[in-house]
């Protein structure tokens, strides 16, 4: 390991300035990043009082020599960069040489370290404003740094720290992200002497995901891989119906650095367009590896923000790698009767989620098929014409396909019994078909004997005028009809005899509600969604053998067939394993 040196001022000036120590998690982050840079295999974190009382990080990394530890707490002291050019080729987590100095200014710091070459180690205590005092100490190779009483000397800032539980939440969350970036590293956290979690070194990202999200999700994760020389994209994607109400379960890493990057977040959303319910976010672990020269990490002192030299290319690559994996995937939600995975994993997940989401219930939890049905609005008790007894009575047996309650299709598969939501699946089939056709050009418009004339508000009128081309591509020919009406001369032929008026009205109001900033692509997309939703068979529609078979046939090749365009699952699988467990055959 190179030695620590003080950066020359022309380099120091180029470093994004700013305070990095805001709260206990900042300490944890800076210490842990240093441990990672030191090549640690194992990192142990102890905190007290949510980190306000104590943050201690111990690693088994390279350690520091006496000369290094003397310098480590000085401003702009770093072993990681030397000259300005190094700033454009950062391969380490740290490079600013400021963290230890800043921390030593706001907390009581003690560090013990021993480099592998040395026979014994060194210990230093710094209590501002007193100077550091270095003494030899016997210890194993590696480094342990602890910071006590954060902001003991700045009461104004101390006041802003939150409850212990809140601060611990931030720490847990950060460490989880760090652990997910480095599966081969073991990482554990204790709070007030009690273990919060421990993530042992594992051989794969999938195993790591299992630690925090449980075996079920881990098993269902779909792998995406691609990119080019100098830009590799790797992702593990949970089926969209595990979606969350916020982005906290989106883990995005650039060169193993956990980042919060708008561009990449947007790329993820774009790839999930039409696969997930609006305002929900997928669980995804996304790893972008890019040559360090192509990314600037020196944007913000916390290094959570980055800038790509060629943003469009990164965005495009990420979208295409994710989309390809998503659209060809065949996700299925498994039905389990107990809540999934090990209790431990569950507890960790639960505590983190409780803290951050405050409403885990909003997410689609596996193991509750009733929830899926309830959300579909087609639980079978309410059918289109209110004839529910009839629907219930009509179990259409069609060889291997059976329709239940006029709502679900049940079939046997290799690993269990599949229960399919007919509306959701059909919706997806039509949507995929419409999208495919739109890519090729446009939908066919069936002309009408008498144009459908629909009154519009001024806002709707503007929206309609803007979207006229999009409508045209859907086979809908629209023409202004006086001041406050539009005449529609043709209608998508695909939709057959369905109620034109109410569909057009829905399209128009959806369009104007979407605001004016929407692109043609977005407009087309939401139109396609609406079309699919209206044209699909409903819950309660009794399907004949041929209809059932043709639906399954078409679904076989439909892109994104695991979820309806709003991201609800199309099918649940009750595995034979689960059945055997339940019937106590195992």
């Amino acid at each position, binding site marked *: 390991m190179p030695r620590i040196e003080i950066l020359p001022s022309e380099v120091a000036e180029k470093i994004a300035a700013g305070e990095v120590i805001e709260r206990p998690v900042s300490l944890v982050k800076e210490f842990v990043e240093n441990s990672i840079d030191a090549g640690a295999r194992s990192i142990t974190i102890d905190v007290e009082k949510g980190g306000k009382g104590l943050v201690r990080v111990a690693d088994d990394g390279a350690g520091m020599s006496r000369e290094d530890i003397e310098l480590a707490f000085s401003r702009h002291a770093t072993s990681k960069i030397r000259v300005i050019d190094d700033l454009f080729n950062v391969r380490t987590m740290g490079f600013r040489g400021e963290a230890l100095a800043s921390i030593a200014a706001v907390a009581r710091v003690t560090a013990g370290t021993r480099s592998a070459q040395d026979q014994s180690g060194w210990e230093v205590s710094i209590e501002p404003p007193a100077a550091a005092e270095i003494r030899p100490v016997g210890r194993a190779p590696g480094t342990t740094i602890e910071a006590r009483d954060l902001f003991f000397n700045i009461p104004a800032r101390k006041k802003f720290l939150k409850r212990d539980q809140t601060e611990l939440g931030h720490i847990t969350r950060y460490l989880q992200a760090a652990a997910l970036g480095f599966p081969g590293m073991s990482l554990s956290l204790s709070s007030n002497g009690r273990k919060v979690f421990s993530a042992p070194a594992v051989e794969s990202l999938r195993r790591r995901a299992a630690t925090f999200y449980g075996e079920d999700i881990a098993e269902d994760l779909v792998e995406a891989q691609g990119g080019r020389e100098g830009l590799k994209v790797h992702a593990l994607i949970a089926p969209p119906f595990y979606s969350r109400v916020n982005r906290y379960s989106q883990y995005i890493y650039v060169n193993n650095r956990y980042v919060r990057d708008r561009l990449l977040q947007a790329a993820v959303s774009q790839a999930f367009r039409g696969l997930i319910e609006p305002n929900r976010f997928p669980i995804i672990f996304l790893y972008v590896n890019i040559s360090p020269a192509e990314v600037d990490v020196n944007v913000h002192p916390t290094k959570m923000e980055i800038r790509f030299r060629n943003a469009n290319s990164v965005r495009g690559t990420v979208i295409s790698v994710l989309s390809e994996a998503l659209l060809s995937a065949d996700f299925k939600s498994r039905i389990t009767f107990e809540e999934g995975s090990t209790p431990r994993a569950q507890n960790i997940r639960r505590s983190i989620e409780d803290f951050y989401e405050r409403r885990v219930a909003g997410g689609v939890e596996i193991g509750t098929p009733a929830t899926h049905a309830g959300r579909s609005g087609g639980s079978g008790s309410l059918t289109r014409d*209110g*004839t*529910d*007894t*009839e629907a219930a009575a009509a179990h259409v047996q069609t060889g291997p396909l059976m329709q239940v309650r006029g709502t679900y299709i049940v079939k046997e598969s290799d690993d269990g019994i599949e229960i399919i939501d007919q509306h959701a699946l059909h919706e997806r089939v*039509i949507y995929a*078909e419409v999208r495919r*056709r739109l890519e*090729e*050009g*446009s*939908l*066919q*418009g*069936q*002309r*009408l*004997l*008498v144009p*459908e004339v629909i009154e519009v508000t001024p806002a709707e009128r503007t929206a309609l005028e803007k979207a006229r081309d999009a409508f045209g591509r859907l*086979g809908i*020919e629209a023409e202004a009809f006086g001041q406050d009406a539009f005449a529609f001369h*043709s209608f998508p*032929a*695909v939709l057959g*005899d*369905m*109620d*034109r*008026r*109410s569909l057009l009205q829905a399209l128009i109001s959806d369009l104007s509600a979407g605001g004016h900033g929407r692109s043609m692509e977005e407009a087309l997309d939401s139109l396609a969604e609406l079309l699919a939703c209206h044209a699909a068979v409903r819950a309660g529609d009794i399907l004949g053998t041929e209809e059932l078979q*043709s639906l399954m046939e078409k679904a076989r090749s439909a892109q994104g067939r695991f979820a309806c365009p709003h991201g609800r699952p199309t099918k649940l699988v009750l595995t034979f394993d689960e059945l055997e467990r339940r019937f106590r055959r195992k």
Partner: protein
Amino acid sequence: MEIALKREALAEAFQMAHAIATTRTTRPVLQNALLSVADGGMTVSATDMEIGLRWNISAEDCRVVREGSVLLPAGRMAQISRSIEADEITLRVADKTCVVSGGRSVFEVLMENVEDFPQVPEMPDEAPLVLDGQKFAEMTRKTIFAVARESTRYALNGVHMEIVDGVMEMVATDGRRMALMKEKVDKQTSMPAAIVPQKALSQVEKLQSDKDETVNILTRERQVFFSTSRGTVVSRLVEGHFPPYREVVPKETDKKATISRTGLLSAMRQAAIMTSEDSRSVLLAFAGAQLTVTGRAPDEGRGEIGLDIEYEGEDLEIRFNPQFIIDALSASEAEKVTLDMKEGSSPAALKDGTGFLYVVMPINIV
């Protein structure tokens, strides 16, 4: 109540009743049929509250022992009467059950309370419009297929009927095509405009014991009655305004094709094979005395069928939903049909030499 009947007659009666009774299940009592035995015969009635049926079994087909009435499940009774292996079936009320027996089979069917069942009105005692049964069947056949099935404009969910100046008109449309049938009737007769639900009309033909039997029609307030010797179908009329259909008939057509009906039907069916299920459309290319019908499925291939025709006018390409053309051609029995057209984006009119006029809108050519 006790009555002996021919099995055939009973089975047919329940089958008719069942067709009406099964559509609604929100009021379970409507799954039943009411049997009334009186005046030497039996009437079976059923209703879904929109359409009602009164089906008569005459003295020829039954022998009344004791009068009375009973309410029985229509579906189950249809099954029972169809499957009993005997020429004659006896129905007898005993205590709480109705005993249905024939040959060596005996069924005891629990009865529902007669009072719970709504009255199906009888044909009022007024002079009805009397129509030739065959003619009426043809008019129905040539219009009923164009009725809209899912429209919230309820007026389109039925067939519009009216007599103006001695001409009876029946017309149906789903907004994409319109089927109109005209037939001369007695100058004196008249009938106010009425929209008859598709389901009611489809039952009327079954009321005729043979094709020649005349059909009596009577409209009254919001109801229409159809009756023959076998029984009566009464239906609520569809409310709302039927679109001004006469205005839809294209007038300035300048191209005319005369085509063999079966030839065109076969060409359309063949071309339809090569269309994808989600957007069926076929291209008709008229050039000289040649019609070429082309079907294309984007990922599967294409089919092209040639046809000799008589054609007047400039060459024209026009695209249709093949099913629309097939529907009209199958309802017709003519040898030849004509198509009057103007452009690829304007309506075409199909005629078959009878009072039939079918206006069909094309699919945009993109």
